[in-house]
């Protein structure tokens, strides 16, 4: 199921929400080889994070937090002279201010925290939701976003790499004209450069046991069974061991480059191709 996510990542360049415990033994996903797709799931559900923070309240709570709390607990509640509240056991146990509220109201005199008696219950709720949102932003990796800008990479070096390695198949004024418009996010462009795999069924030529050659689209292909939909619409299955299957390797050039790229090469190329507007 993580594979589903990984596949999507290539297309929209969002981070993988890979569960640390999940295997990925296949490049793509979906259960059974019978086309069963898994339901889309949210990272929040997956992580069991419970109820989502009240974002409207969190918005109201932010200025209250900055005015009353940030001097000690830090601008993003990650700690200063006072403790980090994002990793606080009390905050993580709190649902809607019932644990946080009493501490704000009474303070922690022995720890040097004053009582905030003027804050209303509603304001305390808003502050609590602001803290829950900070927890959410750290813990819910489904919300992480790739950068829209780059911090590294050199256009000229990317252009030189392109001229040396890519021009036998690609042209900046031909097939890649305007590619920067289609992949405006650097991570999406990088993925496209490294491995522009089409996610649809592959074309293949099958040499049948009788020696006949059939061209078509692979419906199923594994170690045991091959099913091909021919151009005529005819669907035929064979035991894989009895036939020869040839699949044009459209990505041979990209595959050959994968072990050669340095990160700088990839960043330079990404920078350069993003200039092709």
């Amino acid at each position, binding site marked *: 199921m*993580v*594979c589903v996510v*990984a*596949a999507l*990542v*290539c297309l929209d360049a969002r*981070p*993988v*929400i*890979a569960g*640390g*415990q*999940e*295997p*990925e*033994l*296949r*490049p*793509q996903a*979906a*259960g*059974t*080889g*019978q086309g069963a797709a*898994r*339901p889309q799931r949210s990272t929040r559900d*997956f*992580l*069991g994070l*419970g109820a989502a923070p009240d974002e409207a309240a969190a918005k109201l709570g932010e200025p209250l937090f900055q005015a009353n709390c940030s001097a000690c607990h830090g601008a993003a509640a990650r700690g200063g002279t006072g403790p980090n509240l*994002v990793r606080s*056991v009390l905050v993580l146990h709190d649902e809607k201010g019932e644990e946080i509220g009493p501490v704000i109201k009474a303070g922690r005199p022995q720890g040097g925290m004053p009582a905030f008696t003027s804050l209303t219950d509603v304001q305390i709720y808003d502050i609590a939701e602001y803290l829950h949102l900070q927890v959410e*932003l*750290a*813990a819910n990796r489904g919300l*992480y976003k*790739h*950068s829209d800008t*780059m*911090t590294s990479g050199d256009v000229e070096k990317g252009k030189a790499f392109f001229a040396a390695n890519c021009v036998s198949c690609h042209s900046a004024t031909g097939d890649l004209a305007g590619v920067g418009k289609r992949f405006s996010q*650097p*991570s999406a462009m990088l*993925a496209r450069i*490294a*491995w522009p795999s089409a996610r649809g*069924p*592959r074309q293949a030529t099958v040499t049948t046991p009788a020696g006949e050659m059939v061209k078509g689209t*692979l419906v199923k*292909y*594994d*170690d*045991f*069974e091959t099913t091909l939909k021919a151009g005529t619409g005819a669907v035929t299955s064979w035991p894989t061991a009895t036939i020869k*299957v040839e699949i044009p390797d459209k990505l041979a050039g990209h595959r050959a480059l*994968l*072990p050669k*790229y340095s*990160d700088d090469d*990839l*960043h330079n190329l990404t920078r350069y191709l993003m200039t092709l507007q």
Partner: protein
Amino acid sequence: MTPTLLRICVCVLLAPAALMAQGAKGSAADASAGLDPKALSLFHATGDSWPTYNGDYSGRRFSELKQINATNLNQLKNAWTYKITGVGPQRGAGSPMIKSTPLMVNGVLYFTIPDHVFAVDARSGKELWRYDFVDKGGHLLGQRGVGMFGRWIYFLSPDGWFLSLDATTGKEHWRKKIADEKLQYFTTMAAFIVKNHVILGVGGDAMDVRGYLESRDPETGELQWRWWSEPLKMGDAGSETWPNQGALDHGGGMTWMPGTYDPELNLMYWGTGNPNPVYAGQGRKGANLFTNSVVALNPDTGKLVWYFQANPHDTHDWDDVETPVLFDTVVDGKPRKLLAQAGRCGFYFLLDRVTGKNLVTKPFSKTANWAKGIDAKGQPIPDTDKEPKVDGSMVDIPVNGATNWPAPSYSPLTKLFYVNASEGYGVAYLYDTAAEPQGFGGGGSGGFDTKSALLAIDAMTGKVKWRHEPKGEGAEGGGMAGGVLTTAGNLLFTGDSNRLAAFSPADGKILWSQVLESRVSNGPSTWMLDGKQYVIVGAGDSLYAMVLGGK
């Protein structure tokens, strides 16, 4: 009253369902007999049970059984299928998926999915009882199964409850809280039994908490000891690999897979998970002991005896929890006690399990270029230039690692170590650039040229002797799946596409396969009952039992 009759009476009193499932020939499932502690051995000897997650303490997943072998494989057919019912899509994780390896004790199979335990008659596949838990959080990503001690079954709920169930009835005996799901701990492990210790590990790396492993009393559930994955405080051994107390306190290192155990040395071997924050390592400069390590612990005290760190200062979420497989061999005329592991970081390691001394460190998935070399202790040296970057950093290991929890196997007949592996390229991104980041702090993307393969690794050299690269890609149905089992019948069982397949362990030739409704989702296992050898495998929501001649 004969013992058998007595047992039947107990069944009547305690478990009408169990009685109803009994066969007419007196070969009934009889959970009340409990587990004989002698069944727990270093190398699985008797074959008439499968009493732990890995079958024995070694984690070899090699069975001496050979009733099923290359000469009669074509008669191996499905005897029964048990399909889980009454469980809808599991929160955030989709349809129920059996990742546990069933225990088989006294003719009863015990297996799990998150929140649910099932006891099934091993002969017929008929359900004897089920236990349904209602969680209040935690991941429902996986559940590896149960542990057994006497007549008690031990189960971990997703939200950190440690439960003792009556093996005869499935009734809850007691429960103890062992992990706080509000701090993002979750629990999926199959309880591991050593003497009078129930060993339990934890998972969870979303919120930067400390990993730990604990031992509890099998009768009362009370804590006996707890071992933390990081030194407790600065100044303690290993703390020199951390910058400060705050980093130690939030350093991760989860312990979510069952370990292995050598009774003669009285040492338990455990793999630990990645450090936290996961992808953002700038706030935890140093090797981050004892995360991503194989640790040897005394099971009576929880004291660390030795460690070997597989991927120091990990920044790729590559837990080193893969089974530390124990095997014995003779080297230069001397008997050696060894430990082998294929790590998620792409290296195969061979260690002396008495001392922890490294004998082999070798990549099994491309070049594992996150490492720039190997140090004097045999540990890979991470390349700082391959840590996650804001603009991405590519490594020649797939995002989710070169392998994962599905069980490997070692066959003493071939002296090969078998593992389902992944090859390909992934890009690691850094999101949280703060000096002291929090949470995952980054992520991986890009399944570039990723494919699976069944590898047969020469256990003494780490060289890949043969590899089976399955035909097809995921969309077309190909790919390796699940764990590996080898047998003295000269067979290797694992998942390939939507089938259970048998391979020749010597050369990787496919000998046999059986279509299943889903891809194999656990590690296959085998045992004898009434003179018949069974092969058991979980695939999606169903458990399949195969014997020669089928039913």
